[in-house]
């Protein structure tokens, strides 16, 4: 069961088509191709983070600088970023496009991912962060477009949860 190169490409191309020029990321398995595409793309600034919360700062700086950005991380990285999101992006009304891999949901075989899977959506809701799922290639471009539009119209964070059915494919 490899990570889907085609679906990763679909996500990457959709981000690019909405003018995303800075991507900050703390890689995990599901994000491996997305991060590689960013690295290989001379028009994209890729910032590899030590901890995901830094990415909130990177996106704030990019926004102030007039550059569109996205933050790629695992749901546990989102859990580790909450103060930055609340006291940074939300307090200062910064559009923040987060692409979060939804680990720990149905099909998860890694025991250590399972607690995070139980709380991610609840926490997004508690923070009033609009969210949608990316689970099938047909809706990727449209949902990324809509997330992007809402983030900029509201000047707030939005989240897209990258699902197992989209990111993995049968070997």
């Amino acid at each position, binding site marked *: 069961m490899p990570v889907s190169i085609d679906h990763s490409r679909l996500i990457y191309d959709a981000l690019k088509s909405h003018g995303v020029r800075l991507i900050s990321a703390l890689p995990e398995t599901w994000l491996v191709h997305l991060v590689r595409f960013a690295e290989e793309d001379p028009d994209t*600034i890729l910032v590899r*983070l*030590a901890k995901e*919360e830094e990415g909130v700062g990177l996106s*704030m*700086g990019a926004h102030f600088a007039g550059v569109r950005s996205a933050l790629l991380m695992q749901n546990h990285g989102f859990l580790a970023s909450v103060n930055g999101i609340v006291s940074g992006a939300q307090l*200062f009304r910064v559009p923040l496009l987060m692409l979060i891999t939804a680990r720990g949901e149905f099909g998860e075989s890694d025991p250590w991912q399972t607690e995070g899977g139980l709380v991610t959506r609840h926490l997004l809701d508690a923070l009033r962060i609009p969210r949608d799922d990316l689970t099938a290639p047909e809706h990727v471009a449209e949902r990324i477009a809509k997330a992007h539009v809402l983030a900029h119209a509201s000047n707030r964070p939005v989240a897209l949860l990258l699902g197992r059915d989209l990111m993995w494919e049968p070997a």
Partner: protein
Amino acid sequence: MNGKEPSKGRRGDSAGAIRMRRLAALEALHPRLEEERTVVVTIMGAVAAELQSLGHRPGFFYLQHAMGLASSIGLGIAVCRPELTVVVLDGDGSVLMNLGGLTTLGRYRPSNLVHIVFDNESLLSVGGFPTATATGADLARIAAAADVPRTGRADTPEEVLDAYDRAVESREMTTIVAKVEDHYAAPAETVGFVTPLGLLENRFQFARHLETLKGPRI
């Protein structure tokens, strides 16, 4: 040691010495910070209040909260806008809260970023609790070990200004650790640490100002 601090007292290398006032260092820097193509990201608390008291400029952004992220915001601006000089005014407590961020600065090391850390060895705005720099942690050495190309320490306003000028001239990312007094007196117009300029007003003004400074697309 059983996990306890070896000494409850301060044992920073200049414990007991009279340190420079942060306000004096900011006064020395202020003419540089208001240069047209220079933008400033500062942490909250005493640094923000004192900088604002010296004269707010539209290129000054006061990160009131999100502790630790000032350097990450500065990095974001610096990599997106190489034609600008980006100055981050940081603090020991904030840097200690995002030490990993120093390695990210060292990794990307934008040549247009000057990172100044006012180290008062204290979490001043919440009551003056000593930080780990009060018991020996050395942020300049940590920054150097994180691979920030140029690092140094400054103990007087003249040294701060000189280190700043050399950082800009060198076109190499620099972290300057400015050792300052653990003291704050609210400037006029400021109540406690709450400054007269509204937080969102500042944020939108700052972004608009950066738009007016737009250089060639990178």
